[in-house]
């Protein structure tokens, strides 16, 4: 009897044990950082920490080159082959949500209440994505240049006005010490144009699209303020203040560091490298052309694909990744702005007194999201082309009118992109 009982107990245990130590459910995840060794190491660390921290889920990561990531995701969406977790560039998120590639992120608001506004992706009143960092743009200058040209150092509270900014460029040009007064990075005709230059348009009082309705660009991209912006933009190149679209990448990367440019409009991802070579570099806020001073906001964020069968597991991973220690580690490694003040305090660059502290304040106070609409993916390309054409001498009014027509036609073709008209 005793033997029989033992045998039965052993059988029962063998039947039950596999269920007790059950296998983790696999969650697939795609990331845009292939080739970025530092980023890959960090994201892999988060993944392995998460996988070891609990027994329900196991994240398996596949990295893609950033330049082709969006195309890969769109193709996979068409083929019904999306992973559970995707990362998405902030301004692209509304398009992916509207297209049905993503589902809302089931995450408590309290988890993200301290996050920089640019690090949270919202569409249709719901959170779809959250980022571990944000990026910011600033006007790079040398302390010595400001002194030499007798220029006031602008602050967030008192930025340069449009007139002061142009006076600074004129002073730099007239000094004869520089090839160009300002470098805008015109050779990079990708998302850089709307990200970096739309803030100048906003500061003039214009916009890429009417943000009240998102149904038209009429009056905002070709209104009085936009025309004024376009003429100012064109004058930068016509009057020789800035190199145009044919600028060589080499000049863009080395020009400010080697003293060929007095000022450079550049992102914080170049700040660490610049600090290493330019002792007295200062990062100045965007000028105010009359309607406020802005910079672009919104960078890469994590979200959940619409086809994921395990949104709770995907959300658990994303929430795990949003810990301050990971935000700080990413920031220290790749120089971007951590999404929370707590994480910023833990970093070497963005903590109080850190060399890039200014960028956190810039992101917090000046950042404005690019148009939050599925149509942005088209609008950004139209805007880029218009700005390049104007820089190359095209008629400002005609070019902006044509851009408006193209944007409006696209919105109409897509039945308003789901906005209530």
């Amino acid at each position, binding site marked *: 009897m005793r033997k029989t009982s033992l045998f039965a107990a052993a059988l029962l245990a063998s039947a039950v044990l596999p269920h007790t130590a059950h296998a983790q459910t696999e969650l697939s995840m*795609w990331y845009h950082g*292939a*080739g*970025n*060794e530092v980023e890959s190491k960090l994201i892999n660390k988060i993944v392995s920490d998460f996988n070891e921290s609990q027994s329900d889920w196991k994240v398996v990561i*596949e*990295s*893609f*080159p*950033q*330049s*082709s990531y969006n*195309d*890969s995701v769109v*193709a*996979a969406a*068409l*083929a*019904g*082959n999306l992973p559970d977790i995707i990362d998405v560039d902030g301004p692209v998120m509304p398009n992916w949500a509207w297209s049905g590639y993503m589902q809302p992120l089931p995450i408590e608001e309290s988890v993200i209440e301290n996050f920089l506004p640019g690090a949270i992706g919202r569409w249709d009143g719901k959170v779809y994505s959250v980022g571990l960092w944000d990026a910011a743009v600033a006007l790079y200058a040398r302390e010595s240049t400001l002194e030499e040209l007798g220029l006031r150092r602008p602050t967030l509270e008192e930025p340069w006005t449009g007139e002061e900014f142009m006076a600074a460029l004129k002073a730099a040009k007239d000094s004869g010490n520089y090839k160009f007064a300002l470098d805008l990075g015109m050779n990079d005709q990708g998302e850089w144009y709307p990200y970096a230059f739309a803030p100048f348009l906003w500061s003039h009082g214009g916009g890429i699209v009417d943000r009240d309705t998102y149904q038209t660009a009429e009056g905002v991209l070709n209104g009085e303020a936009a025309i004024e912006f376009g003429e100012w933009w064109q004058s930068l190149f016509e009057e020789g203040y800035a190199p145009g679209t044919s600028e*060589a*990448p*080499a000049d863009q*990367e*080395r020009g400010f560091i*080697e003293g060929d440019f007095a000022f450079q409009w550049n*992102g914080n*991802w*170049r700040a660490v*490298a610049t600090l290493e070579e330019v002792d007295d570099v200062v990062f100045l806020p965007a000028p105010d052309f009359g309607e406020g001073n802005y910079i672009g906001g919104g960078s890469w964020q994590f979200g959940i694909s619409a086809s994921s069968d395990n949104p709770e597991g995907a959300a658990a991973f994303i929430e795990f990744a949003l810990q301050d220690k990971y935000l700080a580690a990413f920031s220290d490694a790749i120089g971007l702005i951590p999404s929370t003040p707590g994480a910023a305090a833990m970093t070497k660059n963005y903590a109080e007194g850190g060399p890039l502290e200014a960028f956190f304040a810039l992101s917090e106070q000046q950042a404005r999201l690019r148009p939050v609409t599925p149509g942005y993916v088209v609008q950004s390309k139209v805007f880029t082309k218009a700005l390049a054409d104007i820089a190359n001498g095209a008629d400002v009014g005609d070019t902006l009118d044509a851009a408006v027509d193209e944007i409006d036609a696209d919105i109409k073709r897509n039945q308003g992109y789901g906005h209530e008209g």
Partner: protein
Amino acid sequence: MATISRDNRGLRLAVRYLVLVLVALVFAFPLVFMIVSSLKPTAQLLSDTSSLRAFLPVGDISLSNYTAAFQRAPIGRFVLNSVFVTVVTVTASLFLCSLAAFSFTYLKWRGNGLLLSIALATLIVPFETIAIPLLLFVSRLPWLGLDGIEYGWLNTYRVQIIPWIADALTIFLFVQYFKDLPRELIEAARAEGASWWQIYRRVVMPLSGPVLATAAILKSLKMYNEQYLWPLIVVQDEAHRPIMVGLGYFFQLNVAWGEVMAYLSVITLPVLAFYLVLQRAFIASIASTGVKG
């Protein structure tokens, strides 16, 4: 008078060589720039672009870009993938397209001319216009593997090979070449009782060296150098990525141009080796078919 004539000949020869050397230099410059730049740190590479130093191995020269490039991406894997896909596709393509061309040229069957016209008409259809329908198609196709039937070809070698085997240009090259072969040879073989397969294998193909070389070169370059969009949308795992998608690994926010040049130098090696091995056949094939690359 004879001396003057000899001098003139010498001068003409010197000028001709000078012009040829200059032209050769113009063609060699991109290659020299790529290799020389791959040996320089990015900052120096960028500074040198404004002078002739860009083409000279001067300054801080080392192989560190190669080390870094191999650390950044699994280059060996990408090259192997591309070479494998290229070799299999080209081999299969030469066989099947030559068979098709043989049929179009020598066999009499209903709709022969119409089908050839339709096949050639696909030459004007840009691949981009059919990429998405083709993606949807291959993502649902069945495949009989060791584990039985599975559906979907994504993330495999076959999805990078099979859609590219048959192509109108290769068929066209073979058709044009076969048309110029002496008909008497075919007729004599038929009179001797040879089957069509025997004629294809023993008569036509042994005479088709130049067109095989031309088709192989054009197809290989296309498969090795130009495969970007298709693998981008059908291959999501790193293990199957080809070289052109791999190039994206080097374009980060701060582009390491030295590593880009090192990567390009490495992936160019198989093409250069291929060209050097087949140089004679390549020139002969261009001379005989009149095809310009």
